[in-house]
């Protein structure tokens, strides 16, 4: 024992400097000297801290907004520069500093290392480009949108959280190890929580924020466990080492080896995290509620960036997922079903932001479907296009909301395109809806087709049926997006401002009401920042189609990026996809020569037609014979005709209620029971133990009655008893 006690510290002492030295020495071959890339996450962080300081100082100007825009813009420029410099240069690893490091010492070789370092490959570039780019635009938009809160300090708070979000998102996407990814993962969750609850005096906002965080945490649990299992199995949390090990396993699989169940479990666990963050069934319930936050937040976080983190995670670990085909099938089915379910709900909502929220869930479902059917390119491209057009849609909604005092009910708004100063908003909405609907030659059209087509190609459990489901969903998407457009922007001019003002200051609200009242309400048209951003986004949404035609070999620019990243190195143990390199998507598949045998060709026409049908239906139902904002005769007739279904759709299939009954209430009851148990039984036992001596004392007390005689009897009796016992014992 002694020898152990003495040797261990000694060896550790010798080990410690070695570990410290190793941290500075160059480690992996992909090491980058481009330390300036660290500015990408750093600038938003600095901006966040600055905005926090502004808040503490009580700055009421637009300084926080401009600081953020500047920081994010520079961050975007750095990203762009970085992409242009290193875009094709493989993996860059930029070392920051040591975060966690604990080792076993001696020669056991194992250590837990997780550093603040960046792992940058083409997938990262793709994500970071649109994250920083869109963040800059939306921050600019917010400088105007949030201006009402300048006085009460909410402005600086908003931008502080906003910047912090971008920082966390950068960590998520750029982290070189699972733990840093997890930091970003939870960090974006925190920012989402803070921003959803931005209007913290609104109970609904607070509840929504809480719900978002907790539901996300359920997913995070899966991610955390997956991370732990990955550490146990691969011995490291760092991507470079994990992928090296995965490559080894792929090699054994290619040689006919088996994959251990532990390895197979890792993607299943990671998947849970992705479902939580990307709002997939059954964890999607938080996202629609998250619309309680300011609209730019919905645009950035809950549409364009954060919710695609799940897609990123699976895309990043696609080689790992490929080792377990079951996990891919689950991803595909969950994605497909989520898309369908969310679309049905989206068709029947009246709150236009909610419609957009469900459409986000639905589109995320597409992305998962894409990942499940092994077209990481399709998924990533859809992420890319969706980021643009969904941001456009949300920001248009935001402009409406901003102009109409928080009104979002499509029954109370109508014919906005005819109002002065709303032209750009209308255009933006139209473009966004066209993209979302998959109108031919818009960006959404191409990206969605990639996924749809791949669903028909890939062999998997019921993937053909899934493809048909997805096509139906596409039709629904076209319908509900144009339902919003036709009702809000076309038809007779009519608007009612909302009672539910989105400011967080009651006084201000009252002042508002007094000054303008409901009758004399004048919508204020968007200002320059909002219009500028919308214009840029219109261009962006349309231009997002261009990358599809660039680099055609790799199925577009995005395909090239995906191909160069970790998602591009797959070995499929069992999926008979016809090619080793599935990331090539459709091209690598042995497609037939004829027109109908290549879904990538006929899908253009099929989905285009379906889009037209959806839009036409929307026109028919919501445009024809409409005279006022609140009703559309055909829609109401249809709704009555399909009463049970439409009610269920409108009430979101009662999923929230179902969760309440299945989880929340039982847990609450259980908690009350626990508390009761704690007080009565656990503490009761303790108190009982405490009372025992007292009870014993009470029972013995009569012996001390003060009477000499009874004392004497007691003593004599005691002596007698003892003597008797001793006699027995002898």
């Amino acid at each position, binding site marked *: 024992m002694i020898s152990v006690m003495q040797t261990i510290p000694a060896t550790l002492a010798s080990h410690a400097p070695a570990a410290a030295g190793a941290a500075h020495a160059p480690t992996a071959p992909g090491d980058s000297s481009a330390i300036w890339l660290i500015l990408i996450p750093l600038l938003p962080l600095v901006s966040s801290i600055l905005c926090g300081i502004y808040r503490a100082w009580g700055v009421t100007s637009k300084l926080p907004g401009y600081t953020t825009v500047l920081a994010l813009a520079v961050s975007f420029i750095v990203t762009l520069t970085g992409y242009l410099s290193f875009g094709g240069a493989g993996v860059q690893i930029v070392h920051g500093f040591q975060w966690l490091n604990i080792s076993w010492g001696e020669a056991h070789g194992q250590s837990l290392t997780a550093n603040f370092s960046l792992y940058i490959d083409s997938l990262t570039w793709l994500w970071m480009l649109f994250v920083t780019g869109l963040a800059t635009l939306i921050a600019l938009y917010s400088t105007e949108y949030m201006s009402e809160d300048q006085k009460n300090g909410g402005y600086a708070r908003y931008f502080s959280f906003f910047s912090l979000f971008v920082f966390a998102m950068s960590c998520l996407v750029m982290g070189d190890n699972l733990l840093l990814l997890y930091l970003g993962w939870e960090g974006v969750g925190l920012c989402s929580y803070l921003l959803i609850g931005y209007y913290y005096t609104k109970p609904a906002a607070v509840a929504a924020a809480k719900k978002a965080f907790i539901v996300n945490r359920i997913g995070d649990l899966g991610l955390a466990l997956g991370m732990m299992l990955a550490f146990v199995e691969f011995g490291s949390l760092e991507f470079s080492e994990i992928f090296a090990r995965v490559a080894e396993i792929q090699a054994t699989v290619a040689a006919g080896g088996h994959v251990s169940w532990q390895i197979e479990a890792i993607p299943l666990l990671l998947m849970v995290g992705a479902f939580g963050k990307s709002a997939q069934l059954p964890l999607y319930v938080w996202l629609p509620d998250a619309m309680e936050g300011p609209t730019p937040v919905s645009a950035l976080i809950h549409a364009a960036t954060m919710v695609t983190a799940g897609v990123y995670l699976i895309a990043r670990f696609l080689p790992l997922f490929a080792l377990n085909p079951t996990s891919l099938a689950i991803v595909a089915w969950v994605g497909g079903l989520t898309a369908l379910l969310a679309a049905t709900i989206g068709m029947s909502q009246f709150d236009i932001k909610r419609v957009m929220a469900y459409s986000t869930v639905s589109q995320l479902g597409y992305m998962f479907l894409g990942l499940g059917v092994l077209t990481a390119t399709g998924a990533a491209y859809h992420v890319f296009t969706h980021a643009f057009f969904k941001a456009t849609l949300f920001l248009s909604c935001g402009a409406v909301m901003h102009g109409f005092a928080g009104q979002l009910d499509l029954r109370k708004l109508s014919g906005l395109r005819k109002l002065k100063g709303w032209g750009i908003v209308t255009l933006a909405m139209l473009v966004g809806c066209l993209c979302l609907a998959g109108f031919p030659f818009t960006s959404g059209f191409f990206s969605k087709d990639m996924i749809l087509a791949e669903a028909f190609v890939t062999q998997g459990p019921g993937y053909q049926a899934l493809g048909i489901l997805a096509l139906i969903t596409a039709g629904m998407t076209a319908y509900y997006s144009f339902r919003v457009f036709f009702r809000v922007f076309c038809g007779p001019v009519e608007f009612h401002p909302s009672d539910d003002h989105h400011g967080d200051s009651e006084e201000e609200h009252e002042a508002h009401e007094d000054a303008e009242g409901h009758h004399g309400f004048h919508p204020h048209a968007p200002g320059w920042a909002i219009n500028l951003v919308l214009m840029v986004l219109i261009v962006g949404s349309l231009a997002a189609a261009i990358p599809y035609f660039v680099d055609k070999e790799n199925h577009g620019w995005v395909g090239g990026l995906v191909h160069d990243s970790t998602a591009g190195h797959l070995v499929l143990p069992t999926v008979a996809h016809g090619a080793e390199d599935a990331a090539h998507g459709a091209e690598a598949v042995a497609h037939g020569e004829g027109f109908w045998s290549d879904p990538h060709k006929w899908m253009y026409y099929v989905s285009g037609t379906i889009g037209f049908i959806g839009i036409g239906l929307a026109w028919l139902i919501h445009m024809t014979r409409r005279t006022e904002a609140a009703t559309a005769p055909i829609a109401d007739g249809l709704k009555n005709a399909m009463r049970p279904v439409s009610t269920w759709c409108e009430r979101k299939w009662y999923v929230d209620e179902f969760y309440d009954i299945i989880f929340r209430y039982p847990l609450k009851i259980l908690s009350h029971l626990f508390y009761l148990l704690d007080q009565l039984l656990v503490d009761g036992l303790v108190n009982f133990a405490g009372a025992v001596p007292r009870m014993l004392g009470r029972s*013995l007390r009569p012996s001390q009655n003060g009477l000499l005689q009874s004392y004497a009897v007691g*003593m004599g009796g*005691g002596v007698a008893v003892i*003597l008797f016992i001793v006699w027995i*014992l002898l």
Partner: protein
Amino acid sequence: MIEKLAQLHPEIALFAATCIVMVLGLAKSSFWRGMSVWVTGLGLVAALVLSFFSPQTDGMLPNSLPYLKAMIAAIGLMILPLMGGTVDRWYERTVGRGASFDPLRVTRGEFYAFYLLSLMGVMLCVTADDLIWLFLALELTSLPTYIMVAMSTPRLRSQEAGVKYFFLGALSAATFLYGFAMLYGATGTTQLQDIAIHFRTEGMGLIGTLGLVMALIGVSFKIAAAPMHFYTPDVYQGAASPVSAFLAFAPKAAGFVVMIQLLSTVGWGWGEHGIALPEALRITLWVIAAITMTFGNVLALLQSNAKRMLAYSSIAHSGYMLVGLLVGPGQGPIAGNGLGAAMFYLLCYGVMNLGAFAVLACLEKRDEHGELVEIETVEDLRGLHAARPGLAWAMTLCALSLLGMPPLLGFWGKLGLFTSGISAGEIGLVVIMGLNSAVAAFYYLRLVRAVMLDTRDEDMDRPALTDMFGRRVAAGLSAVGVLVVVIWAGQLQAASDHATEVNPRIRQFNERVVEAEETPVIESIARND
């Protein structure tokens, strides 16, 4: 016999002081009467000093002299300021106001003389080496205390207490005397060493065993152990606080010393490992110890009268010390020595218990007749910190020490008992003791809370401070003691261990017998070494 006198220097000093005090007490001049307390003190100092120079005895506890007698003298000295003036301050006041002197009504001399005689009895118990001597010494310890209780206050309660104490004491004396007689009957000798040798060679037999058990139970009256504990609360409550403090120490010390002597005749050189008591005796003591501590604590829990509470706590502490007795000198050279631990605990208990009683003795209130009486209840102590911070701190320290709160003296005493109990394998008993300490914490904390944390109601009378300065000195001494003696805890424990080493002759004899008779045992001993 005469050579034994050479071992009795401290006792002789005390005896001389007793004689002087008795005479002085009758002096007409109040100055000389007042000198009696100083002479008592002087006698105790002399005894203290002399106890270091007494030669070794060849009794059962040959090394006992310096530690045990010095401890008795020292604690006697600490109690003395508390005692000062207890008995006849009313009378002295009357004289002070010009009343005529009546030698028949002045009891000061007697009181101190009894005090000294009782302490002398305790010391004699230490040196005793045969049954007769033991009996006489025990009675010398007890008899004066009966009277002290009765005369300690002019109230009827004290006399009731005295009577109860006397009759029950007589009952116990009868018990142990009967036990002594049976021992003599079984062995034919009154010499403890001879009894030990006889038991070892001839076996104990039924009569011997029963005799020893009876003797032990009888003596356990002195230490207030079950089943002879009934008198304790009544007597402590009835007596004046200083006398209660004295009762909690002197007879207890005598009782423990005698029990050690009696148990040495059968144990600690015997048994498989050469230390254990006969099984019947061990079980008896085990049960008595467990019952005593539990009984004392659970009843103390219910008390609202502080004196009665301390009386029950005194029962409980006897139970703790019995653990040490049960363990015996233990295997190891020092630390496993249960006797040493018990004797060290006795010292600790003497110091800390004194303080608790002294604080009670320092405070007075008017009873229903308008007389100033000592306070008794916990209620009376409430909010003491605001009025008398010094006394409140003294009470707090002593109560926490009695509780066994480290780093106060009581903890170190308890630690010794813990270690010795565990080294003897009496883990069950040690756990019972631990749990009992926890129970005890409750009522000691009530004392602490009352004095330190509670605030006094507006309409409550402020407790008057007694005019007897000595009592405050005693409280202070005790409070300082529980803090400061800790520094010498190590030395004192070592001295105590040394003092309680059983006569090597008995040990050697037993070992010889073992070697000669029980070959299987030898192996185990050899292995043990």
